[in-house]
């Protein structure tokens, strides 16, 4: 992976390397990961969405654990707050399913190509019907 992606974003404490990438490259980076490390060479631990209201962005971090050394690295991307659309990676890494469902339901990021996305996965139906995303900043 280091061959295809330069580390530019510093570290998340403690010593988790951060690689920043354009939203359009997310799929190709994960395809590269599968090609370089194989299906058993990494897993997507979690997807963290953060609403950065002042910048007008929603930051999406993929925390990936590289096996067998179990090193956690961060693949960081950001989408505009008014049009938060990203390509889904569930067909490449099925383990991303739970993270994508959650980030969609709580922050409103649309993962294109994920057929299982729905509101009300976690959020109560009355909140979901109003179109409120609870973790968006007011």
């Amino acid at each position: 992976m280091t061959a295809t992606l330069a580390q530019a974003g510093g570290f998340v404490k403690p010593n988790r390397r951060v690689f920043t990438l354009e939203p359009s490259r997310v799929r190709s980076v994960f395809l590269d990961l599968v090609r370089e490390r194989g299906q058993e060479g990494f897993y997507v631990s979690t997807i963290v969405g953060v609403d950065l209201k002042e910048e007008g962005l929603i930051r999406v971090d993929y925390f990936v654990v590289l096996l067998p050394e179990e090193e956690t690295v961060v693949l960081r991307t950001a989408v505009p707050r008014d049009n938060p659309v990203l390509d889904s990676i569930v067909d490449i890494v099925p383990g991303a399913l739970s993270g994508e469902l959650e980030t969609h339901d709580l922050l409103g990021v649309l993962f294109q190509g994920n057929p299982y996305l729905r509101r009300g996965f976690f959020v109560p139906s009355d909140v979901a019907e109003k179109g409120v995303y609870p973790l968006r900043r007011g």
Partner: protein
Amino acid sequence: MVDKVVELPVTIEIPVGPQHPALHEPVLLKAYVDGETVVKVEVNTGYNHRGIEKLCEQNTFYKDIFIIGRVCGICNTVHTDVYVRALEQILGLEPNRRAKYLRVVAMELERIHSHMLINAVMAEVVGFDTLFMSIMLDREKVMKAKEILTGARVMADYMMVGGVRRDLSDADAGRIAKLVEQVRERLTYYKRVFEEDTTITKRLMGVGVLKRVDAVRHTLLGPVARGSGVRIDARVSDRYDAYDELQPEVVVRGEGDSWARMMVRWDEALVSAEIVLSALSKLPRDGSPVPDERKLPRKFPPGEAYTRVEAPRGELTYYVMSDGKANPYRVKIRTPSFTNIVNSAFLYEGYTIADLPVILASLDPCISCMERAVITDLRTGERRTVPFTQLSRGDKAWRGRGFYLL
């Protein structure tokens, strides 16, 4: 002349849950069965979403420690430990060695009682209630040990930024060691019961087999992954707290079935007992492990931390982001059950209804279900699938062809 057959699988929907579907989480498993065989499982969540991440954004860093202890009763010390360590990373603080050792003792006691609980539940699920009662009785000894250490059987509120909230006297350390030694004997006995008892082995062996590659691809964690031969353990890779000195042996098995997952838990409980005894025998004496809470920093610098802990159920991670104000900007919690429940519906398929609670008790899955019909071309033997919607639309292509409904 009839040359095509429409085969409509008669599937019956069986709700399992949301009240106590074998485990404690209120989750609804919609199982679609064809006869006795489970063909699809759909997981409905959201019965217990309490908005804790949002609540954390609205309270101070320190109040959040107590909110986070309430995420999960069974493993509250691991939750607070991983959150407190994230705060320590942001602050640049480090607790002393004694505090780190005491944290490990609390977390390993928790692992023993959590593994005993899930194994007891498994015994109950397969109809072996006596074993359930017996394990739960012995589990009380671990709860007592945890009470001696933290002051509470369950809700410990033991971790604090810069250390722990109670010191341990030498006399109490001896009491805990005695209890753990008693429990260790019982753990060895129960492990043998799970190996030799025909009720257990018949119901668990070969049920819910998980391949190594599927465990990794679907982010299945903890004993579930280790039961399928994946060597992952955050205690070994991150070496947080005192795990740099008290290195645990990673228990891995290759069978990948429900039985292997339960056996991994028994072996891990035995390893935990060893760690507790070893930690108690060499508790460092480098000052008080209890920080003066009045002197802890009130202001948090901007920064972010992502900490991991090996909870009883697998890798538990916290992401904490501070923007320099009194409250955290974002707290993201990813529990191991979250991926183990949502990502693993594929495991149920092909097993019977009676196996469903067994597999569920050994882990937990999800897949969305689409009703469909299978078209069999009798001339060529070719089968293809067509969605119900297309059939019900009455497409011209399907009219007047003389289908048989099977």
